[in-house]
């Protein structure tokens, strides 16, 4: 009995299937920028109509943190700057707020990247927690400076805690393939 020929997925469909594997760092700059735009559009337009006005879900911060860790320095910085600009120009946040916050995170990641083992859970959890907390506190601080007062209610605490928890969880999902060694973490 002759051996059965395995089904071969036609190239355009295979390419499309590959495109559906959304991840922060693909190795192709065009794809990375495309995914960043899609994530930003979901973050700015689709999520608010689902979860309401409260900023409960943050897609951009975990996405950019994982990109910074796994991508080589140049590409990581380029994508982070682009992401920060997208966040700033799509909101009324002061010009430079996200650029400053993410640049400082990028510096921290760059300095600690080579010293940590990214195959373990712990460095990822710590990095994501610190980064998400930093972004939240930076936003609150800038707002306090603009308003000249600071009011942080229990409701705000619950919102920011949810945002923090979601950011860490999403970051852990995004980093899975890099942690398990499917894709190596990019070096300098």
């Amino acid at each position, binding site marked *: 009995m002759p051996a059965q020929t395995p089904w071969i997925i036609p190239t355009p469909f295979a390419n499309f299937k590959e495109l559906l594997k959304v991840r922060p760092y693909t190795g192709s700059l065009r794809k990375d920028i495309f995914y960043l*735009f899609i994530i930003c*559009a979901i973050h700015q337009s689709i999520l608010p109509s689902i979860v309401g*006005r409260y900023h409960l879900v943050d897609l951009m911060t975990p996405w950019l943190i994982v990109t910074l860790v796994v991508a080589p320095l140049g590409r990581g910085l380029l994508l982070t700057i682009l992401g920060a600009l997208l966040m700033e120009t799509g*909101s*009324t946040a*002061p010009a430079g707020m996200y650029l400053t916050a993410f640049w400082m995170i990028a510096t921290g990641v760059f*300095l600690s990247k080579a010293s940590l083992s990214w195959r373990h859970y712990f460095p990822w959890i710590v990095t994501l927690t610190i980064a998400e907390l930093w972004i939240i506190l930076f936003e609150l601080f800038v707002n306090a*400076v603009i*308003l000249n007062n600071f009011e942080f209610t229990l409701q705000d605490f619950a919102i920011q805690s949810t945002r923090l928890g979601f950011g860490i969880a999403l970051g852990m999902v995004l980093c899975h393939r890099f942690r398990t060694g499917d894709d190596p973490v990019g070096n300098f």
Partner: protein
Amino acid sequence: MKDSFKRFATFFMLASALVAPFIFFSSPLRSWQNPHWFFTLLQDAIHPVERVWHNTTEGVTSWWHTYINLTRAAGENDELKQKLNQLEARILAFDEQMLENQRLRKLLGFSSRSEKKLLAAEVVGHNPFATFEALRISRGALDGIRAGMPVVAADGIVGKIIRAGQTFSDVQLLVDSDFHMDVLLQRTRVRGVLSGATKGHCILQLHKRVEIRIGDTLITSGIVGGYPKGLPVGRVIRITHETENVAQSVTVEPWVDHRRLEEVMVIVSPDPELETILEAGGPQWSQRALNKHLGE
């Protein structure tokens, strides 16, 4: 070679990370009001996704209302007919009052209010940042929209255009922390500057002796910003007196609930005061005035 580049990169990143906050906090802390074409291009690239999402959700909602909710239509139709009759009667009365008002204005020598050109726009996006909220609308520079134009809704003031892309514009809301506007207390005609605050409210600082009550309505003064005089802005919901302060802090809830907005109107008529200044001083008047002031 690689080591020396790495050392340079480490030094550069550390130095820039230390300097960045100083540069940021020494800036005016304003959002991108007149962004570079590149930033507009970034948002233009995202806009099609927003349109697709908006049109899809609108389509589904409209289909739901048209077909599934059709059973309620007959009852609603009767109810609406009754309301229409009542409203027609009221319109006749209002027409009479308007004519009377015009006659009285003429008699008193009041200048008639100039007609403002309005441009309707759909709300296609709502920025999720609870601190820096903004709306995105479906009209842009191609429709003649420019930064600074006032945005209103049926209930009152919504905000102003903060940046205009080719086919979209971002609206800075009344409740944004960087929003300020001149207002009047409708009952006592006291003027003040209303500022945006967090949690969907605005703050108005008034002198301690100014008489104000919970529930008082604030309207636009019509002095600056291109807003017509008398548009409703919000109502007073809290008054705070501080013993060591000569001011009272008034918390105002806007009449417009921006979370439920679907359509807005942009006032595209130019601000007469600003146009006069620009006509007299030219487009770079503010920069020249600043340079003169700084002695450059």
